[in-house]
């Protein structure tokens, strides 16, 4: 344990490489990446540029399909609001009582159209979060093991604990609280649009605020905890290194030299492998986010634009409903993004841990 943190200062390169020592664990990470790791080959020198190019290619491939899907929903929504506008126009000014019925039909139609998108996109967001969580169970222990082997055992433990803990908390909150709150938010918006009830509209606004606040709070606490625990763990690792140096100074010179060589080889090898696995993990997480980010982001923009366009010809409650449902997509995007952010920050933190 103590010797693992010796920052030896000489000779690299001996036969037994870190790839062999950690091959089982690293292989598990590559396996867990599934299809998202297909375009990334760590054995052929993985770089951020090639990884991002692969992601851009993935975005390009999916863009056309997503745009067609989004356009279909927008056309249907615009058709509903235009139709409601026409019918309402034919009733006014004499048919004031029938306006409520027209509006109710409009709300039901918009909600029905949005429901298929909402259900599908919430499912996609939840699936992505699940995939990230499953991948993190393979990635984080491996990165922690490599970080420990590269000379920062306390930092590795702190990093994995923080990430796994906050990841579990976030996923539990998303499953148990935030997603139901999104459903409730959509329901409140629909009911408020149908009835014009100010209370429901405010409850919807409160739910949206709560979701944003919970996500922001979890991420802020995570970053704060990671920073503080990282500083404490860094000090602990530094003390261990000094103790190891002291112990090493009492060893026979020839053995001391051999120990330094071995420590240098192990630390450097594990460090390089940690960076490769960390970068691979980050690119896989980003790859997992491509489809949901495209779907949710484009739906969000499209619903907002449709709401704005429809506002020129239709009832403000109907257009407001479209706008609010678009905001629900933004909330799901935020949840998926929060999970990805957590993993990415953890990887950056682990990769940047250096023995001093």
């Amino acid at each position, binding site marked *: 344990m103590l010797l693992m943190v010796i920052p030896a200062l000489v000779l690299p390169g001996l036969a037994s490489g870190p790839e062999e020592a950690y091959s089982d664990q690293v292989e598990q990470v590559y396996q867990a990446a599934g299809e998202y790791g297909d375009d990334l080959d760590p054995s052929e020198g993985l770089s951020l540029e090639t990884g991002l190019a692969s992601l851009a290619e993935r975005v390009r491939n999916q863009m056309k399909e997503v745009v067609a899907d989004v356009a279909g929903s927008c056309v249907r929504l615009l058709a509903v609001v235009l139709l409601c506008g026409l019918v309402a126009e034919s009733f006014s000014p004499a048919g004031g009582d029938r306006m409520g019925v027209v509006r109710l039909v409009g709300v039901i139609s918009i909600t029905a159209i949005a*429901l298929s998108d909402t259900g599908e996109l919430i499912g996609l967001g939840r699936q992505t979060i699940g995939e990230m969580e499953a991948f993190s169970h393979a990635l984080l222990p491996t990165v922690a093991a490599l970080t420990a*082997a590269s000379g920062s055992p306390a930092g590795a*433990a702190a990093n994995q604990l923080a990430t796994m803990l906050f990841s579990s908390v976030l996923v539990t909150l998303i499953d148990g609280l935030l997603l139901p709150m999104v459903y409730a938010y*959509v329901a409140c918006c629909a009911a408020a649009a149908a009835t014009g*009830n100010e209370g429901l509209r405010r409850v919807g606004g409160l739910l949206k605020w709560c979701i944003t606040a919970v996500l922001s709070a979890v991420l802020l606490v995570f970053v704060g905890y990671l920073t503080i625990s990282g500083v404490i763990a860094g000090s602990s690792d530094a003390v261990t290194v000094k103790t190891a140096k002291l112990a090493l100074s009492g060893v026979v010179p020839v*053995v001391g030299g*051999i120990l330094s060589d*071995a420590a240098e*080889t192990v630390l450097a*090898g594990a460090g390089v492998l940690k960076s490769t696995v960390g970068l691979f993990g980050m690119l896989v997480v980003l790859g997992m986010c491509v489809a949901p980010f495209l779907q949710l982001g484009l739906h969000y923009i499209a619903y907002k634009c449709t709401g704005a366009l429809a506002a020129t010809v239709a009832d403000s409650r109907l257009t407001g409903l479209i706008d609010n449902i678009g905001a629900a997509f933004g909330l799901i995007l935020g949840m998926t993004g929060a999970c990805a952010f957590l993993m990415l920050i953890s990887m950056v933190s682990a990769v940047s841990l250096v023995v001093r």
Partner: protein
Amino acid sequence: MWLLAMTAAALLAGAVEQLCPDGPVKRAVRLVCGLVLLVTMLRPAAQLRDLAWGDLFSMEREAAQESVEQGTQMGAEQMSAIIAEEAGAYIVDKAAEMGIQCAAQVFCSETEEGLILPQAVEVAGEMTAQQRQDLTELISGELGIPAEEQSYRQGGEES
């Protein structure tokens, strides 16, 4: 299903409210509908209370500790192998300088201070008694392996 049920409930509440005539009945219906919606919305929050948050922390801490121990152990094994290999090569080189052709297998173990050090060696090769004496002293002095932990094999016989 949950989304459908929630939306249906909200829409139903809205429709009932719409159909009610203005007056005290409408206000009562609005209150009941609001309460039903509120209870439905807060139900998931109540379920979170049942989760064992303390257990989650200790479980994740144990998992992190396990990962670190595994990494440390793998690093130590790798290091032990490198030290054994380097120390063995050092003995063979020094023996060659003394005119001895031999092979050396070094065994390492962790000390109380946490250092992985060569603890024993097996040398196989032909050598005179004087050469063996010199080699034993060299290994003791430079690698810190005591004479009693050094074994020599000549012509298939251990001594």
